[in-house]
């Protein structure tokens, strides 16, 4: 059954008519064409599909579209600040936090959610926050450093 919903997607009001059971991940990738949000497992175990839903990081593969009327959603495509990379994006580039890049979108959205809530996280806080985001390439060390550096940059801007 199709349902009419209105969401704010990366800052823009968007009207959609979607089957209620369509998962947010599939809605983004297949219907809207935003493939920056990745599918790694489809069962909420890997975090590659992490997006911000009303400011909180969620696995978009576990959210039904029917629940989304009025929701504010930010995906990796909405992370830039104007034409500029968000500090957390820039830190991932500078510190070598990216390899194959497939987990990167989810990792960045989770990191942003953490830094929004706690701009001065300890290493343990960061490791805990991203422990649901699997990365097979990096060994996480450079990602942790990137989140620390991004936090420092964001604090300096305040």
């Amino acid at each position: 059954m199709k349902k009419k919903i209105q969401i704010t997607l990366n800052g823009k009001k968007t009207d959609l008519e979607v089957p209620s059971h369509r998962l947010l991940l599939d809605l983004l990738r297949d219907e809207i064409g935003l493939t920056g949000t990745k599918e790694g497992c489809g069962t909420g175990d890997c975090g590659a599909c992490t997006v911000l839903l009303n400011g909180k990081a969620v696995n978009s593969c576990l959210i039904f579209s029917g629940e989304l009327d009025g929701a504010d959603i930010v995906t990796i495509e909405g992370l830039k600040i104007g034409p500029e990379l968000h500090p957390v994006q820039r830190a991932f580039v500078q510190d070598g936090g990216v390899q194959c890049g497939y987990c990167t979108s989810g990792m960045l959205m989770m990191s942003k959610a953490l830094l929004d809530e706690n701009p001065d996280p300890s290493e343990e806080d960061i490791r805990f926050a991203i422990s649901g985001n699997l990365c097979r390439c990096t060994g996480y060390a450079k990602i942790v450093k990137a989140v620390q550096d991004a936090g420092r940059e964001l604090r300096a801007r305040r």
Partner: protein
Amino acid sequence: MENLTVVGKPVTRIDADEKVTGEAVYGYDLVLPNMLYGKVLFSSNAHAKIKRIDTEKAKRHPGVVAVVTGKDAPWIHGESIRDKPFLAQDKVRYIGEPVAAVAAVDEDTAEAAVRLIEVEYEDLPVYTSPEDAARPDAVAIHENFASYRKMAFITPGAGPNVSEHFKLRTGDVEQGFREADIVLEERYTVPIIQHAAIEPHSAHAQVDPASGRVTIWVANDAPFRALHEISEALDMPKENIRFINPLQGGGFGSKGGLKLEPIAVALAYQTNGRPVRVKFNREETFISTLTRHGAIVQVKTGVKKSGAITARAMTIYWNGGAYAEKSPTVCIRGSLPAPGPYRIPNVKVDGYAVYTNLPVAGSYRGYGIPQGAWAVEQHTDELARRVGMDPLAFRLQNVFVEGDVAYWGEELHSVGLKETLQKAAEAIEWGKTVDALPGSRVKGLKIGKGLACIQKPTRSPTTSSAGVIVNAKGDVSVLAGTVEIGQGCNTILSQIAAEELKMPMEKVRTAPLDTDVIPYDASTTSSRSTYHMGNAVKGAAIDAREKLAALAAPMLEGKKEELAFADGKIFLKHHPEMSLTVAEVVRRKLGAEGTVRGEASYTYQLAKDLDLETGHSDNASAFYMYATQAAIVAVDEETGRARLLKMSAAHDVGKAINPLNCAAQIEGGLAMGIGSALHEHLVIDQNGKVRNPSFLDYHLVTALDLPEMIPIIVECPEPQGPYGAKGLGEPGLAPTPAAIGNAVADAIGARVYDLPLSPERIFWVIQQKKKGKAA
């Protein structure tokens, strides 16, 4: 060495921006116009005859465009042994084997139609253990094995399921054992694990009805080899096949060979020109793509009280799964150096690659080295203990050094192994006892240290070719068939082109990979790319530079030899003010749309092929990588849980083209190795069914599971490598489990012989030790 401007610098990745913005398009993201959606019916039985397949209901299902079975796709492929049908023919050999496939207008429809296909099986005996399957009286998993087409080096074993029996024979091991003061025999096992790249597998295919041309879009790590394999299977000229590589979200060996490609091609032949996408979800990726060989490794060594090794005999069973894939070459290249990087006068190795009724095993970061290292590196510690030597000192006394002749007959050069041992050990304060965990309130923790080292060959002989194009804006395009699988090759190869042309990095880009236009490359495997493709790109850039110099010489009123390159400019050495930008030179001579193209090819030749009776070779590998890992662990004796406190990894890379990227590779390899040491195990029951095909049940390391990691770069230059470089992709993983195993043994005073080092396993070894039974 000359003054390097870009090579050797920690340049950030050239592909990072598109990856942090979500703009990068991976194979799994790719949508083609008018595309159909493929779904697969997998075998539910591990070894069975197919009595009947009924696809009628599926064909009639609304929205279905094509349904195919083995009858519709009568093709067989295989890299070294042609044994694998596109879809099962007459029988199935593992649970998860593709039996039939559907193409439909959307994924839901395809999935519904797959459920309407009926298959009737008649079960046959199921083999899960390679030792059982290798017996001469075993039932043949491939009845027609003898008639399969095989590469020349394949040496099948005595039993019907042994696809390869590798033999190494040096000296007289029995005599060596007689000369020894101590002879130790042990048996180690390595379980089946999976690559688990975060991007699952997918492939798209299209067959043009008019020309018959086949196009395949797939994130394959060896598109030219895959093209060759498809061309052989379809008996079609290579020019009628095209591979286009979208970005790959990690591979680690899983995305080479043919996996989903044959299914997509079989469907595409039935859709009247419409492209078909076949995607595996995570569970399907676990059961039906590729695994790492489980292995049983028996090792027997004679040692003198002085610490000299007199003889080593090994038997290794490689659990190859249902099809040969890369099993024969994993068996050969994993068994040959399995005795370890040690001076041993008498060596005998028998490696058996064995068919079983399990998912197909193949290449996996390290290509057979991790399995041997798990056994031999722990065995080495046991030998040291028995002769009363420190494990580091024992290794330093016995490891290969410059000029040694290895037990397979090759004289070794550029051997940085000792330095890796010393540096890795130093980083964890080897020899200094750690009594307690600082700040820990937990009682009963036992702390231990351990290390392990490896030598890794690379696939040889192979060829890489490259092109470098400079346009009239001064942009440089690198044409290379190396696949960006996350390892950073596009950055490394761009650095090399930038270095030779003295262009700024931001002017250099790598071209997309399309076999119609990109020059040949053997594969992105075996840590071979920096060396082989690095040499090819370097040569192509030098060729372009020579051509640019020839164009610039008359413009600058000088001779070619009098010119130099710097900062994107060409100038006269003795009159540096006389200069032109590279862009101007191209534009003036060739116009605004002009280009200068350089080309080069690099091949590492073997003087002589491997001797199939003795396993001997004068030069088995273009170069060797050397690495040592060292670990500190804390074991909780109450629970058996081993927690890593610190790991160091010292790698001889020859020359670090990009130190940032080298550290990233080492850390990533370490993390993967730690996962395989402590958690990972694809659990398969006696019926051949995978019991944990999800990330919930198959435990990859998370950010919380890892200790402090110390990557250390050692540079012992390889004269033939670009700027002295060797390779680095694989060794980060290989010695890691053994280093941790040695640390655990040091902590609890008893050895664990089987991976993974789970709390339960360690707990029982501690209990056995208390009863006085363990080693």
